[in-house]
């Protein structure tokens, strides 16, 4: 017989797996130790009691109550409302506008000008209008407007991030 008693963890492991290895030291000890046998019996009783239903029952009309709370079209509401989609579009547009304003527009036009395409006609047809449009842009935004735009974009992004986080947490 082994010199030490079985630990709580060892007993729980045995009962969880419902298996005791053949000819193991544990088995030998269990055969001759009353203390461990009692402990195992106590755990067995605990296990069988834990399997019993605590008795909390939902009312019979529970299904109907849930169904009555569901309204048509409630399934999987859209991620963003139309108002938010408009805000996203405005935010994106403004962000692009600010980016274009901050970078040197003429240099972009020059880059486009330098693009080499195999056929001049294609180049004229596709790139020239873009280049001419950029040359023609004459943005004179004030610093205040720029700050306002930045704030608007940040607010829109914040709202969206918060909404996504909230949805994930509440699931």
């Amino acid at each position, binding site marked *: 017989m082994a010199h030490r008693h079985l630990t*709580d*963890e060892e007993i*729980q492991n045995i009962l969880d797996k419902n298996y005791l290895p053949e000819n193991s030291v544990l088995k030998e000890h269990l055969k001759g130790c009353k203390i461990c046998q009692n402990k195992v*019996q*106590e*755990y067995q*009783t*605990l*296990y069988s*009691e*834990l*399997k*019993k*239903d*605590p*008795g*909390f*029952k*939902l*009312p019979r009309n*529970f*299904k109907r*109550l*849930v*169904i009555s*709370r*569901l309204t*048509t079209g*409630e*399934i*999987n*509401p859209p991620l963003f409302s139309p108002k938010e989609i408009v805000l996203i579009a405005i935010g994106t547009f403004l962000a692009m506008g600010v980016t274009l304003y901050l970078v040197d527009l003429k240099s972009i036009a020059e880059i486009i000008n330098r693009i080499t395409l195999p056929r001049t006609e294609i180049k004229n047809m596709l790139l020239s209008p873009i280049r001419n449009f950029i040359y023609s842009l004459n943005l004179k935004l004030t610093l205040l407007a720029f700050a306002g735009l930045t704030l608007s974009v940040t607010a829109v992004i914040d709202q969206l991030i918060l909404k996504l986080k909230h949805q994930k*947490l*509440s*699931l």
Partner: protein
Amino acid sequence: MLHKKYFATSFPFTCRILIEEMKKSITDTRLLIKKIQGGDKKAFQSLIEEYQQLVSHIVFRMVYNKADREDLCQEIFIKVYQNLRGFRFESKISTWIAKIAYNSCINYLQKKKIPLFADRVGGDKTIEDFSGNYILPDSLTEEKDIASRLQTEIAKMDPPSRTILTLYHLEEMSYIEISQIMGIPQGTVKSYLFRARKKLREKLMSKYQKEEIWHTDI
């Protein structure tokens, strides 16, 4: 010898039947979910019927305010319905529903400012002080037998331990499933479970006469 022969012939047959049953069950669940995703409310009723016990067990263990329990169960199923389109069959539907139920209970407890873990209880208060306002249904207060005594002791534990005990023993879920539901590592689930059972045994042993509980009521 006869046993062995019988086992050798019947075991593969039994396995095949079990596998077939499992396949059928998976296909049935998939069909049911597809129907609900298509807006079939009758199919959703079947889903409620199948999983209301699972949800009620989790809510029962997490929330002790009788008045709020049923409402919470309803809200959980409404959330299930609203989000079912996002279910990608990456886990079992029972795990997914249990996760929604568990998170809803956590949100409820946070709203009510009830601490989740015993070590996060401030001041001189214990977890029992918080659950004391809600716990102990009438049937449990009498403490007539081991079952009701056990329920009383479980009620004094922190909500995650109570949930793990229920999911493991009552719902017969694995460590992996429980860890997915509660969003904690498998090792943590195991240590919570072992600690909870050890504590339950010790509590019951120290509080009551050994013979009275363990040997007369069996």
